[in-house]
């Protein structure tokens, strides 16, 4: 059951919706069968960073509808070597496809901030709450 619906004020990008939740946790959701290249990854990071100007926050990524993510995009999302406002991120996966992409990303890119895969939204949010500053 997908409950992570983008609100009306969400920023809509080519393959993502991005918004800030009332709990201080940012959300980003991939559109159905999203094919993410580094261009979309950079676009998404810029949108996420614009959610709060003066403080850092955790991020919930709903990747349950993802179709593919190219290597440079995976590398970008790992946040290595770049300024980020993200304190941690949780990636929600469900389908076999999103599971493979999620595990590949976590296993090979070793994100620079705490990151975990979840298939339950409540568990993901509870984990992310520890990283709300």
């Amino acid at each position, binding site marked *: 059951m997908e409950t992570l619906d983008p609100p009306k004020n969400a920023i809509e990008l080519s393959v993502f919706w991005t918004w800030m939740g009332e709990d201080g946790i940012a959300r980003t959701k991939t559109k159905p069968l999203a094919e993410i290249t580094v261009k979309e990854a950079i676009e998404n990071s810029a949108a996420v960073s614009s959610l709060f100007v003066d403080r850092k926050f955790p991020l919930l990524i709903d990747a349950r509808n993802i179709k593919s993510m190219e*290597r440079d995009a995976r590398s970008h999302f790992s946040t290595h070597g770049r300024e980020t406002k993200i304190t941690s991120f949780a990636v929600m996966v469900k389908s*076999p496809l999103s599971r493979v992409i999620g595990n590949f990303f976590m296993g090979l890119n070793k994100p620079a901030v705490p990151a975990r895969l979840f298939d339950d939204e409540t568990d993901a949010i509870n984990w992310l709450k520890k990283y709300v500053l």
Partner: protein
Amino acid sequence: MSSNIKDNNSERVQEILDVIMSYARFDFSKKTSVIGNETLDAIGAGVNMLGEELETSTISLKEKEQLLKEIHHRVKNNLQIVSSLLNLQSENILDKRYLDLIIESRNRINSMALVHEMLYSSKDLSKIEIGHYVERLSKGIEHSLSKNDSSVKFNFNIEDGLFFDIDHMIPLGLILNEIISNSYKYAFPANKGNITIEMINTEQFYRMTVKDNGVGFKPNFDVKRDSNLGMQLIYMLAEQLDGKVEINNELGVSYQILIPH
């Protein structure tokens, strides 16, 4: 499962297998198609991502190899420049003692340059076969030290397939250079003789033997007391390899260097 679905799955498995085989041949141009959200799509996506990672690693490895080749090339060129400068310098020197010192230094440099030259031409850039090295080094020393009426013959008996890395090759090359040069300088007053170089791999160590059939050391020659720089270098370099030097002064001079594995 209907026959159509079964056929479709077989085709997709075959497609994924074809892509895996392409990657095994280092052809990363192919990708599997990901059309839905089923298990085979997930496996296909995993294979595609694996291909991207392999391609990046392969490119990075090739770039590193190219860089290493370039470094060996440059080191060799720089050593050759030093050698050429010494050559030029020697043209203005009339005193035989200084001339000999320059030739000795030049040959030492050449023995190291040859290691780098052979390394950048080698297949894996990290090891060279000592048999080829010894033959080329000997020719170089012969060219440098032989006189017009010289008839010094080399015999090589080096086990095939003995490869050494640069950390072993540089000291071994310098040791060989010193021993062969000593034979040329002192063993053959009539400029005639034989130099035999052997190398075998035993269970515990590599055994390198270099012997000449020359006049041998002078009576009462004491290695510790009467050694020149060349002889001291032989001991120092062998020590660097954790090796041992044994010298025999019967029917010419014979050096045996034992290098542990």
